[in-house]
């Protein structure tokens, strides 16, 4: 096996690096301050076909694979983590359809998603169900050719802008969630009974929107069920297996972005008559940061290369893939938090103010330790693979 990126992956990386620098970086601070959904970024991604990365050609995709998507996420996250969430949430929301959708459902939903004309969200978390999927209370009851859904979802990224939300519901309250109790149903925007509740005011990734989703006697065609009733738990878990490396690549991007700023600053900043990068106390910090970021990156790429061979259907995910997926997310998220914190330290007072981007990066990094499975949950997953 050639241990390197392919020519296409490298060209994609170069292209997105340039797009990020020219089109996304200039507005990053403003997007963070305004905390508004970045439609301008969505348009940039549409114009350049970036939404198509991990979709099959048959459904309008570029079929470049999950590593290619992760490279794109990393490059965007380097300059604006909030904007990288647009790609990340797109993959997360689409994944249940990719895994569990019938050919007919895929033909219906995927081309619009691959083009980025439609946006999608993933409705898992509830007030009482975060790390523990068993706490899901949203209930879907089948009536004729419809499901009637009732419940509330919490912290759903981009639910307010999404055309579709993949909603995790209890369809069999008698069965345990992982034993056939849960199902995933695609709820389309504008469905009566679907409404968006409170918008969260967040510490970081402020360009992305995070909201409450309220389903009140929401009638959805039974044809919107993904897979069969009871497939929900498996679809959810496999979705997260696939998307954890994407969050990990976001974390790597944030960390690299902060490291780049710290190195440039340390070269420029003069104290005691010399550039502060010449002080061992600081350049050893930078050396550690660089090493950690590279280690995280390699773990993410390795994980992605394993996932390229995992079929996007309802088959079981190999244990090795699950293990790597959890490790990459854990290690990259912890690295991002540490490296961004150290970057603020290296910039000193300037790091703590909004004149420089590292304080934003430090705030953005925190979420990577929390969403799509906290660092603690990743450890549970890794331990279960031992």
């Amino acid at each position, binding site marked *: 096996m050639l241990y390197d990126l392919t*020519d296409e992956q490298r*060209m*994609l990386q*170069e*292209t997105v690096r*340039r797009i990020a620098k020219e089109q996304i970086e200039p507005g990053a601070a403003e997007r963070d301050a305004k905390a508004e959904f970045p439609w301008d970024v969505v348009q940039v991604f549409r114009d*350049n*076909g970036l939404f*198509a990365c991990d979709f099959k050609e048959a459904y309008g995709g*570029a079929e470049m694979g999950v590593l290619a998507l992760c490279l794109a996420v990393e490059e965007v996250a380097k300059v604006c983590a909030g904007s990288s969430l647009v790609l990340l949430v797109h993959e997360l929301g689409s994944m249940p359809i990719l895994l569990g959708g019938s050919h007919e459902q895929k033909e219906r939903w995927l081309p619009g998603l691959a083009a980025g004309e439609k946006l999608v969200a993933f409705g898992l978390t509830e007030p009482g169900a975060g790390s523990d999927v068993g706490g899901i209370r949203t209930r879907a009851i089948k009536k004729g050719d419809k499901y009637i859904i009732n419940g509330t979802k919490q912290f759903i990224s981009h639910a307010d802008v999404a055309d579709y939300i993949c909603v995790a519901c209890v369809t069999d309250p008698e069965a345990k969630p992982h034993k056939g109790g849960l199902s995933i149903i695609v709820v389309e925007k504008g469905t009566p009974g679907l409404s968006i509740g409170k918008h969260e005011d967040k510490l970081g990734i402020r360009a992305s929107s995070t909201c409450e989703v309220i389903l009140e006697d929401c009638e959805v065609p039974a044809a919107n069920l993904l897979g069969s009733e009871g497939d929900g738990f498996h679809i959810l878990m496999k979705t997260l297996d696939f998307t954890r490396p994407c969050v990990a690549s976001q974390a790597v991007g944030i960390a690299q972005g902060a490291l780049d700023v710290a190195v440039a600053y340390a070269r420029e900043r003069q104290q005691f008559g010399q550039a502060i990068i010449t002080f061992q106390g600081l350049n050893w910090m930078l050396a550690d940061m660089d090493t950690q970021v590279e280690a995280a990156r390699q773990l993410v790429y390795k994980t992605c290369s394993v996932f390229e061979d995992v079929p996007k259907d309802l088959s079981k995910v190999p244990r090795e893939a699950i293990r790597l997926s959890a490790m990459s997310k854990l290690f990259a998220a912890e690295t991002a938090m540490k490296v961004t914190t150290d970057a603020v330290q290296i910039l000193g007072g300037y790091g703590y103010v909004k004149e420089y981007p590292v304080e934003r990066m430090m705030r953005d990094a925190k979420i990577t330790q929390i969403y799509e499975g906290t660092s603690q949950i990743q450890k549970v997953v890794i331990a279960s693979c031992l």
Partner: protein
Amino acid sequence: MNIVVCIKQVPDTETQIKIASDGKSIETDDIKWVMNPYDEFGVEEALVLQKEKGAEVTVVGAGPQRVTEALRTALAMGADKAVLIEDDDFYGADPITVAKVLAKAIEPLNPDIIFFGQRAVDDDSGVVGSAVAEFLDMPQLSVVTKVEVGDGTVQAHRPVEGATLVLESTLPCVITAQKGLNEPRYASLPGIMKAKKKPLEVISLADLGVERDDKLEIVALNPPPERAPGKQVEGETGQEIAINLVKLLREEAKVI
């Protein structure tokens, strides 16, 4: 309609350039190579004509194998095919030699328009486009910011000290692109996937029957002088500072 765009691969403008130990070339080990930014304008303009006039766009580059990357980037942007004149020792060649080689390679492609960047950002010589026009006996419209192709003719704008010179020529011709001609597109995702399947012909100087006969030689490269540190103007009051500033401008900077 056939359009050729000549592409030079140059060090990325953000790369730190180090002069090699021979004192007349640059260290190429850690350099990131990119398509010359002015050539991107040429590629973009050609792709507009590809769409509007159904033109076929061929990109041509010369140099070592790495130049393939710049050509593939142009293919990913949308060019139809590429020609690489592969030669390991070509970077830094006499621009007239480069023009001779390119002219030989371009001639059989039967172009209606040959685009160049108005200069390359590495050596800034700005000669090759004009020399190719000369070797192929074509009119040249250099340093242009607007191109309109009619029926067998082309009109182009060249900015001249704030005014605009409107040029008209018959086809075939050589056009060299200036900043402002257009906004080059990025390589698109489907374009990247297709780029590898597009034809890329590799030929050698021997294939073209050209021998190197460089007349121009780089004898030395000197780095720009290190920027002197800034100076803070001293003084207790605003008036005093102003007086000292004027003094410095007159006596040290000698600008007033």
